C-alpha cells in the first residue's frame, strides 16, 4: 500500500516534470558562480522559471579553470549555451573572431541601458555595438586594518608615510600589500597618470611618459620605501592581512569572504596620486551577460538578461549574493545603502576604468607582468623596459594585424592546391598496386596479430591522429584569433611558420650594456627544455630505482612505506605543485626559513635562471618518482628469484648481482618507461606553469609552455601549432635514436 502510494507520487512528479519540460522552450545559461553568489543567482532563475511558463532557463555552473576553454570550444561550433556570464575583457577577442557573441542592440531599449553607469555600458560595447548587459562589477579598493590604521589616507604620499610606519621587514610586517606585479592591480597607478596602455585610437602606447612614471612610482614604493612584500600573490596578501601583518591591502570584493573573523577592517576608495593630482583609478572587471549567436530565441534570451539586471534582481544579488550589482539603483536599497563596504566599492566605481576590451589587451597581461617583475627586482630600468615591451608587443600585434588583413581579402583557392589531393589519391593508388600482394600475404600470415592490434589502432586513429592531422594542417596557415573562420586557403602560408621558428637566430636583444639573451628565442627555449628533461629523467629514474630496490625485499613497515611513497602521485598535482611554489617563496616559504635557521643565506628562488630552474626540477622529481618507482617495482617482480640464488651460490657480490641480473632484466621495462618519461617531461606543462611560470621573464619556459603562450596569450594559433609540430619532430627523432641505441646494445650483448 505504502509502496504504491510512493509510486503514484513518483509518477505524478515525473508527469509534472515532463509537463514542465514540454511547457516551455529551454534556454541554457552558463555561469561561473559558486557559494552565496551562486545560490542567489539560481534562486533568481528559479523565480523566473516559476513566474512564467514559456521559457525555462537551465543554469550550468562551470568551474573557472575550464570556463573560457569550454566557451571557445563550444560556441564557435554552434554548441553551447544561449547566454552566458563572463568578464568583459575577452569581448574584443570574441567579437573580432566572430561566431562567439552576438550584438544585442536590436533587443534592448534605452530604459534598460539607463540602469547602468556609462562606463559599464562602454565595457560591454565593442566596435560600436553592444554585446551584453553588465551584471556585476569587481574592482580593487583600499582595505584598512582599522586596529592599525584609523583614517583613510587622502593621497599616495600619506598612504606611503602611513605604510612606512607599519613596515618592519625583519618581523615580516608591511604597511601595504597587494599583487603589485599583476597588471590588473598596477592599472590603478597607470590610469592615475594618464590614459593607460592604449591611446585614444586604441593603439598600444605602453611607453608613454605617463605609463613610465607609474612604473617608476611603483619601483620607488618597492625598492626605496620598501613598504611592500616580495613576490606578492593574492594568497600571500590575504594571509598577511589576516595575521595583522599588513596594515593596508589593495584588493577587491572577492577578498572580503576570506578575511578572518577577528580582523577589523574598513574598505575605502583608493587615494589621490600625489604626483599627478588624479585619483588612483583601478581597473574594473565587469561581469556581463552575453548572447550566443546561435541562440534560437535571442529575444527571449535578452528578456532573461533584462530580468537578471532589473533592480529587484540586482538587490537580491547584492544582499544575498554579496555581489556589487551593475544596476546601480540597487545601491539605494536600505540594506545596501547602509553597508559601508559596498558603498565604498560603489564610490570607487566612480573613478574606476573598465579593463580595455580590445583584443590587444589580452596580449598585454603577461609581458607587462614580466616587465613589472623585472623592474621591481632592479633587473631593468623602468624606461628602457617599457620601451622594450612596447617594441616587443608591437611586433606581436603586427603579426595579428597582418592575419586580419589577409582574412579580409577574399582569396581564391590557388589552383595548384588541387594538385595535393590529386597527388595523394595517385599515391594511394600506386601504393595499393605496389603493396597489395605483400599486404594480403601479411594479413593471411598474421591475421591473429592484426586482429589483436586492430581495436587499439582504430581508437588511436580517430582520437589521436585526426587531431594531429588538424594540428599539422593548422601549422601551414597563419591562423590567429582574427581570421579563424575564414576559408582555409586564404590563410595558407606554407612553411613560413617553420622558417620563422627555426630561423630565429636573434639570440640577443637590446644594445650595449642592456644586451641580454632573448628568452623568447626558440633555441634558448630548446636548450632549457633539453636540460630540464635530462636532469628530471636522470634524477627521477635514479632515485626511483634506489627506492624500488630498497622496497623490493621484505623490511619492517614495507607496505606502509610503499603507500607513503606513492602519495605524490595520488594527490592531484595541481595542489601539490602550488604547495611547492609556496614553499619556495623567498620571504615566507619554509625552504628559505629553514636555510636561515641553519644559518645559511636565503635564496631568491625566482630571480635567477638557475634557482628558478631548481624549483621546477625539485617539484617535478618529487611528483614523478612514485610513478617510476611503481613501474620498477613491478619490473623487479618479474625477475626470477632463482637467478639471485644461483649468483649467491657462485659467490657474486651485491653490486655484481645488480649489474649482471637486475639491470639487464629490468631493461625491457625500464627502457619504455624512460622513453615515455622523456616524452612526458619534455611536455610537462603543469609544473613549469604553476611553480616557476617561466620566471625570470620566460627564461625558464620550456617548448610546451612557450607554445601555449603563443597560442593562448598571443592568439597566434597557427604559430603555436607549428611549435607543437617541431616538438613532435624533436621527440620523434629522440625516440628513433633511443630505440636504435637500445637495439644495438641488445645485439652487442
Amino acid at each position: 500500500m505504502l509502496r504504491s502510494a510512493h509510486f503514484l507520487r513518483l509518477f505524478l512528479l515525473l508527469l509534472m516534470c515532463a509537463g514542465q519540460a514540454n511547457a516551455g522552450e529551454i534556454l541554457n545559461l552558463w555561469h561561473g558562480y559558486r557559494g552565496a553568489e551562486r545560490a542567489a543567482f539560481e534562486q533568481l532563475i528559479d523565480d523566473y522559471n516559476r513566474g512564467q511558463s514559456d521559457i525555462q532557463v537551465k543554469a550550468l555552473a562551470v568551474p573557472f579553470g575550464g570556463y573560457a576553454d569550454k566557451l571557445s570550444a563550444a560556441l564557435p561550433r554552434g554548441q553551447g549555451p544561449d547566454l552566458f556570464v563572463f568578464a568583459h575583457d575577452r569581448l574584443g577577442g570574441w567579437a573580432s573572431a566572430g561566431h562567439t557573441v552576438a550584438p544585442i542592440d536590436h533587443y534592448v531599449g534605452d530604459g534598460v541601458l539607463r540602469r547602468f553607469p556609462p562606463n559599464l555600458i562602454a565595457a560591454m560595447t565593442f566596435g560600436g555595438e553592444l554585446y551584453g548587459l553588465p551584471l556585476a562589477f569587481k574592482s580593487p579598493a583600499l582595505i584598512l586594518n582599522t586596529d592599525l590604521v584609523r583614517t583613510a589616507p587622502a593621497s599616495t604620499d600619506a598612504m606611503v608615510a602611513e605604510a612606512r610606519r607599519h613596515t618592519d621587514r625583519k618581523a615580516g610586517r608591511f604597511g601595504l600589500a597587494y599583487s603589485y606585479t599583476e597588471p590588473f592591480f598596477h592599472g590603478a597607478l597607470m590610469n592615475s597618470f594618464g590614459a593607460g596602455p592604449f591611446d585614444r585610437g586604441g593603439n598600444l602606447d605602453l611607453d608613454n611618459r605617463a605609463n613610465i612614471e607609474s612604473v617608476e612610482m611603483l619601483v620607488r614604493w618597492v625598492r626605496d620605501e620598501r613598504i611592500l612584500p616580495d613576490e606578492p600573490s593574492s594568497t600571500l596578501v590575504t594571509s598577511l592581512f589576516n595575521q595583522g601583518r599588513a596594515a593596508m591591502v589593495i584588493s577587491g570584493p572577492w577578498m572580503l569572504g576570506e578575511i578572518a573573523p577577528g580582523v577589523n577592517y574598513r574598505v575605502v576608495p583608493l587615494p589621490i596620486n600625489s604626483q599627478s593630482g588624479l585619483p588612483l583609478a583601478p581597473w574594473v572587471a565587469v561581469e556581463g551577460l552575453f548572447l550566443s549567436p546561435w541562440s534560437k530565441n535571442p529575444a527571449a534570451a535578452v528578456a532573461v538578461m533584462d530580468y537578471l539586471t532589473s533592480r529587484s534582481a540586482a538587490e537580491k544579488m547584492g544582499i544575498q549574493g554579496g555581489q556589487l550589482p551593475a544596476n546601480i539603483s540597487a545601491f539605494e536599497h536600505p540594506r545596501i545603502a547602509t553597508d559601508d563596504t559596498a558603498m565604498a566599492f560603489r564610490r570607487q566605481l566612480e573613478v574606476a576604468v573598465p579593463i580595455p576590451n580590445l583584443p590587444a589587451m589580452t596580449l598585454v597581461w603577461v609581458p607587462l607582468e614580466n616587465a613589472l617583475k623585472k623592474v621591481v627586482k632592479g633587473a631593468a630600468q623602468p624606461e628602457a623596459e617599457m620601451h622594450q615591451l612596447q617594441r616587443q608587443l608591437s611586433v606581436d600585434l603586427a603579426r595579428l594585424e597582418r592575419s586580419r588583413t589577409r582574412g579580409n581579402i577574399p582569396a581564391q583557392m590557388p589552383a595548384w592546391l588541387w594538385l595535393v589531393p590529386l597527388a595523394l589519391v595517385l599515391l594511394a593508388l600506386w601504393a595499393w598496386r605496389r603493396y597489395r600482394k605483400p599486404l594480403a600475404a601479411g594479413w593471411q600470415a598474421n591475421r591473429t596479430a592484426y586482429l589483436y592490434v586492430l581495436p587499439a589502432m582504430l581508437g588511436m586513429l580517430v582520437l589521436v591522429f585526426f587531431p594531429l592531422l588538424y594540428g599539422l594542417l593548422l601549422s601551414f596557415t597563419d591562423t590567429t584569433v582574427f581570421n579563424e573562420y575564414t576559408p582555409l586557403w586564404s590563410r595558407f602560408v606554407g612553411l613560413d611558420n617553420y622558417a620563422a621558428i627555426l630561423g630565429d637566430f636573434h639570440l640577443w636583444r637590446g644594445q650595449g650594456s642592456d644586451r641580454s639573451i632573448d628568452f623568447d628565442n626558440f633555441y634558448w627555449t630548446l636548450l632549457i627544455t633539453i636540460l630540464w628533461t635530462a636532469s628530471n629523467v636522470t634524477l627521477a629514474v635514479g632515485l626511483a630505482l634506489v627506492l624500488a630496490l630498497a622496497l623490493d625485499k621484505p623490511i619492517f613497515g614495507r607496505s606502509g612505506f610503499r603507500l607513503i611513497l606513492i602519495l605524490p602521485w595520488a594527490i592531484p598535482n595541481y595542489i601539490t605543485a602550488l604547495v611547492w611554489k609556496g614553499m619556495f617563496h623567498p620571504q615566507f616559504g619554509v625552504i628559505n626559513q629553514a636555510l636561515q635557521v641553519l644559518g645559511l643565506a636565503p635564496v631568491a628562488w625566482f630571480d635567477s635562471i638557475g634557482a628558478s630552474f631548481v624549483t621546477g626540477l625539485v617539484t617535478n622529481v618529487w611528483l614523478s618518482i612514485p610513478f617510476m618507482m611503481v613501474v620498477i617495482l613491478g619490473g623487479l617482480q618479474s625477475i626470477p628469484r632463482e637467478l639471485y640464488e644461483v649468483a649467491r651460490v657462485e659467490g657474486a657480490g651485491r653490486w655484481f648481482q645488480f649489474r649482471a641480473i637486475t639491470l639487464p632484466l629490468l631493461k625491457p621495462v625500464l627502457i619504455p618507461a624512460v622513453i615515455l618519461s622523456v616524452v612526458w617531461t619534455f611536455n610537462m606543462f603543469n609544473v613549469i606553469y604553476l611553480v616557476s611560470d617561466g620566471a625570470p621573464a620566460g627564461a625558464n619556459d620550456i617548448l610546451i609552455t612557450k607554445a601555449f603562450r603563443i597560442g593562448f596569450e598571443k592568439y597566434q594559433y597557427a604559430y603555436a601549432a607549428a611549435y607543437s609540430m617541431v616538438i613532435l619532430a624533436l621527440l620523434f627523432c629522440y625516440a628513433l635514436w633511443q630505440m636504435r641505441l637500445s637495439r644495438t646494445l641488445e645485439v652487442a650483448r
Partner: protein
Amino acid sequence: MNAAIAGIKRVVPSRSARVVRDIFSWRFVLLMFASLIVLYPLLWVVSLAFSGQQSLTLVRLADDASVAQQLLALVPLPEQWTLDNFRAVLTEQPFLRWLGNSLVVAFATTLVGLSLSCTAAYAFSRFRFAGRRRGMMLFLISQMFPAVLMLIPLYVIVVQWLGLGNSWLGLILVYSITALPFCVWMLKGYFDTLPYEIEESALLEGASRWTIFTRIILPLARPAIAVTGLFAFMTAWNEFILASIFMDDESLYTVPVGLRFFVSDYASEWGLFAAGSILVSLPVMLLFLTLQRFLVSGLAAGAVKG
C-alpha cells in the same frame, strides 16, 4: 650475504629481532628519509584541510628560540583542528555524487584501456608481423603532441561527429585512448620478459592463441597489469579540462571538475580545495593498497632470501 648467515636467520625467526635489524639497516634509514621528504609538502595540504581556514598561517620564527624550536616551528600544523572544510566540501556541492561519477568513469577507463592494450601488447610482443615497429612508434607519437592543442579537434570529433558530448562514454573513450600508449608499451615490455617456452608447449598441445593469452599470459603478467591498470585509472581520475568541456550537466561532472570550483581567478578557497584533494586521493590509496597484493605476487619464489 653468505649462506651461513642466512641459515642462522632461518634458525632464529624471532620477529622482534628482525624488526630491530630492519630498523638499523641503511635501507630503512633511506626509506624513512624519502618518506619524510614525500610527506612534508603533503603535510601542508593536510594541515590546510584540517585548519578550517582557506589560507595557511604563515610561519613566524622567534629570534630567541633555539634551533630545534625554530625547526619545529616549520612543521605545518593548524592552530586548531576542525573538520569544517571537509563538511563544507561534502555538503555545499554534490561532491559524493561527483566522486561516484568519477569512479564509474575511471573504472570503465581502466577496463576498456586494459582490454585494448593487453591484446595489442600481446600481439606486439609475440608476433612478428609487418608494421610491428612502426605500430609501436605510432603509439609513442601520440604522446608527443602537446595535449593543450588537442582540445578543439577532440571536441570536434567527440561532441560534433560522434555526438558523445555530455555523456561518460565520450570521456571513457578519450581517456582509454590517452592511456593506451603507455599501457601498450609497458605491457609489451613485461610480456617480453615472460618465457616463451610455456606458450610453445601449450601451442603444441593444441591450445588456441586466445586460450594461451587469457589462461597463461594474463595471469603471469599480473604485476604489470596492476601497474598499467593503476595508470589508466589515474589518467581518468585526475583529468579536469576535457571533463569540464564535454559535460553540460552538473550531475554528470567528475570530481576534478567539482574540485576546481574552489579555485578561481580572484579568490580561491584553498582550504576547501585541500580537503577535497584529500578526499579525492583516498580511493586511489585504497586501490593501491589492494593492488599491492598483485605487485608482490612474484614474491613467493623469493621469500627465502633476506
